[in-house]
């Protein structure tokens, strides 16, 4: 592999990390913003700092995101590059429509699609997709929904007869803690994906051996990319999560964040891969449904579920198409250079539009 291809893959991985940050900001801060526990800028800044710190807390790069899903020995930098493009494209598309979808599943889908086109169906491990995507995808939202519904029902029973002022202020304070815990866990989970990809690419290029430590510049650059993405903030998705699924009070926001964090941490502890996006979405629906079923806008929830189902095939299609385009240019750096150039143009256009829409939402608070 030429050094040019290496640095294109590294740059693309950091671009994915950035989209991961701004796409998933909503997971941590949407409830805090919608219940006015924190002003939007403060909430997003705190999430950015905690995502940055979280990236340094854990360096378990051995379990990379696509392991067990594609044949590891068939993976090349071009496949990783095309997979990253598929994931970035899906992240941008779902951000544009304000739909919270899993960045991890987008990355898995992208790599599956590019590996399929590059090496054929044998490169894809169907059992791994069922184990790491399908089953967790069913469990995460349902578990979070049920646990949050029980938790908020009990919370309402306990504080229901107390004065609304102190109760609201109390849960808003609690949300600072629960939202911070969620941001920290997001940083430890998601920055690892990018670090793992860059680390493996450096090994494949002969810069490192598998027994080496993760270079400091990899940790710092991945942490910085996800923190910057978080700070930029995916305001469209924040609006969906914070006010379009249900109209939330501080008690519901606290319960959703707390249950979301405990589900993610318990799953992470036993090695069961759950999507933070799916968990917090399920929690928010549970917090609303416990009050009354009609409190949840099921049409919005349905759109989110459709986005979840489409994530793997859509990212796989773009990943596969990208690999086919890259392969047209041969084995040198021309293909990745052309595709990376197109991606940069797309990102520039997308963020130019975001500046127009993002300010409006920020002003609404």
């Amino acid at each position: 592999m030429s050094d040019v291809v290496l640095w294109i893959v590294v740059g693309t991985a950091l671009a994915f990390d950035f989209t991961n940050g701004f796409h998933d900001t909503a997971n941590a801060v949407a409830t805090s913003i919608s219940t006015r526990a924190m002003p939007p800028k403060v909430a997003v800044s705190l999430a950015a700092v905690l995502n940055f710190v979280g990236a340094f807390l854990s360096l378990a790069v051995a379990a990379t995101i696509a392991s067990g899903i594609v044949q590891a020995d068939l993976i090349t930098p071009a496949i990783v590059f095309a997979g990253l493009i598929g994931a970035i494209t899906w992240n941008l598309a779902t951000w544009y429509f304000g739909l919270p979808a899993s960045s991890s599943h987008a990355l898995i889908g992208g790599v599956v699609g590019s590996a399929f086109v590059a090496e054929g169906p044998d490169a894809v491990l169907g059992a791994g997709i069922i184990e790491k995507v399908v089953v967790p995808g069913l469990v995460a939202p349902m578990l979070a929904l049920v646990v949050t519904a029980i938790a908020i029902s009990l919370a309402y029973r306990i504080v229901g007869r107390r004065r609304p002022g102190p109760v609201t202020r109390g849960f808003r304070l609690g949300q600072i803690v629960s939202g911070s815990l969620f941001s920290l866990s997001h940083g430890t989970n998601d920055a690892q994906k990018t670090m793992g990809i860059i680390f493996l690419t450096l090994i494949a290029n002969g810069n490192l051996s598998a027994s080496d430590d993760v270079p400091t510049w990899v940790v710092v650059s991945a942490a910085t990319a996800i923190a910057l993405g978080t700070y930029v903030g995916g305001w469209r998705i924040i609006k969906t999560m914070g006010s379009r699924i249900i109209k939330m009070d501080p008690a519901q926001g606290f319960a959703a964040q707390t249950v979301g964090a405990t589900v993610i941490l318990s799953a992470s502890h036993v090695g069961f891969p759950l999507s933070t996006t799916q968990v917090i979405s399920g929690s928010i629906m549970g917090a609303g449904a416990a009050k009354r079923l009609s409190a949840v806008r099921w049409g919005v929830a349905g759109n989110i579920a459709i986005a979840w189902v489409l994530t793997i095939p859509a990212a796989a299609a773009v990943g596969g198409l990208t690999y086919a385009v890259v392969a047209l240019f041969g084995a040198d750096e021309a293909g990745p250079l052309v595709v990376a150039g197109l991606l940069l143009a797309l990102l520039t256009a997308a963020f130019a539009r975001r500046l127009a829409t993002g300010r409006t939402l920020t002003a609404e608070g």
Partner: protein
Amino acid sequence: MAVVDFHALGQVVWVSLVAGIGVTVLFSVVIWGTDKTAAARREGQDGQALAYGVLAVAAMVVFSAAVITGVVVMLNKG
């Protein structure tokens, strides 16, 4: 065919139930106890105020311990 780790899944379910519901209930007790303490003080019932205050502080201590446990779990991942 995939081998789904049902043992891990079961652990996630019961830990989520206990921790998610437990932490939410604990913090609700903190708020309830704090407000009851303030109400008892306003009515001049110092004994009740002390009892509710102790309950609120105890719930806060356990809540804080749960949050610290969450951070420790994160630190022990890798």
